[in-house]
């Protein structure tokens, strides 16, 4: 098996995550779609690290992980505070700026 299979799998997962972000309206599911995209990028980075025999790709994946954790914390806090004020977790209901 060639390592390209990993790359194709990562691409498919990324596309599914992107479709989730585009189609779903529940903010939490949209957020999980973002997480899926980040994860597939990590798979890509790990595979390329193996291609090149260089661990920098893994280090980058590690940083992606840490930043994703921080992003999840802030994003979920935003979702919770929006839910508290507007009683909704749907991304369609966040239209306060629409005149």
């Amino acid at each position, binding site marked *: *098996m*060639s*390592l*390209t*299979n*990993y*790359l*194709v799998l*990562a*691409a*498919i*997962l*990324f*596309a*599914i*995550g*992107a*479709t*989730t972000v*585009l*189609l779903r309206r*529940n903010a*939490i*599911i949209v957020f*999980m779609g973002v*997480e*899926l995209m980040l*994860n597939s990028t*990590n*798979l890509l980075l*790990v595979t390329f*690290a*193996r*291609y*090149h*025999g*260089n*661990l*920098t790709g*893994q*280090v980058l994946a*590690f*940083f992606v*992980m*840490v*930043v994703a*954790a*921080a*992003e*999840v*914390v*802030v994003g*979920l806090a935003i*979702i*919770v505070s929006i*839910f*508290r004020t507007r009683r909704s*977790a*749907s991304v*369609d209901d966040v239209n306060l700026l629409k005149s």
Partner: protein
Amino acid sequence: MSGTLATVHAALPAVLPAALEETGRTSTGEAVLFWVLAPIMVLAALGLLFARKTVHAALAVVVVMVSLAFLYVAQDAVFLGVAQVVVYTGAVMMLFLFVLMLVGVDRSDSLVETIRGQRWIGVLAGVGLGVVLAGVVGRATYAPARGLVEANAASNPVGVARLIFGDHVLAFEVVGCLLVVAALGALVLTHRRRLTPRIGQRELAERRVREGGSLVPLPAPGVYARHNAMDVPALGPDGRPLEHSVPRVLRVRGQEADAREYAARIDRVLAGGWANGAGSFTSATGDGPPLGARALAVHAAGQEDAPDDAPGGADGADEPSAASADAHTADGDEMRDEEVAR
């Protein structure tokens, strides 16, 4: 931790031959692992896309992430594999589940399209993106893979640590700051300023005293020899049923039982009516209403200002009688005698 990682790493070649062959192709074991896990991952990712319930979507994402951890370990990224399980599955997805429970799990997506045709455009864009990415990535020509045997010579975590704390130490520090800022930001975002004064136990107690009413807990429902459930009111010391001893829910639903039946029998038994031959359960009503029923009648009449037909009962009931059951029945006995004499 690093000892465990080193053990895992040392045991890895035996379990899973991760090293690449000369041509840059993977071993058969890794290929089998990949072809088992890849369909599972794609199906779980589609589960995220199509799941109706948010919790199911979250569990599907957990499956994807755990499978990814397997693939990382198979690809000589042991440290990342463990970090994937700990950080993503353990922390991030659990945080997601917490927020799901906080926000409410029963909220499903609305099917109303805010933007017309968004669904089809989204599907088209997603499929297009997938085809383009997979096509580009899959058809590109790569140099033969070199594998990580050299880079991982001193075990994978050591190699990664050398890079992180060597070349990328500044980024590492910045990321640490980022995490602290994110934690503080989450605290600030979810902090709720109290707009109304806090109502504690003391305030509740003071309000209760100020408003009057009963300061002590409400009386428990009645306990009778033939009935011991919450739907029958207890009798007060004066023989009247206490309405508020029945839970409010039952009263609102109209499921409150009549205390008269059970109270009447107790009265007659305690008064010795049956044993003394003064009457049976069925004939006792002929002598006049038993105490429980009389008390009920008095209770009803007390609200409509003292009826003419039961002055003695009204007097007896209005007197603050002793709280003990014996005194109560003695009282009832007297009243009963009076009535019989009359």
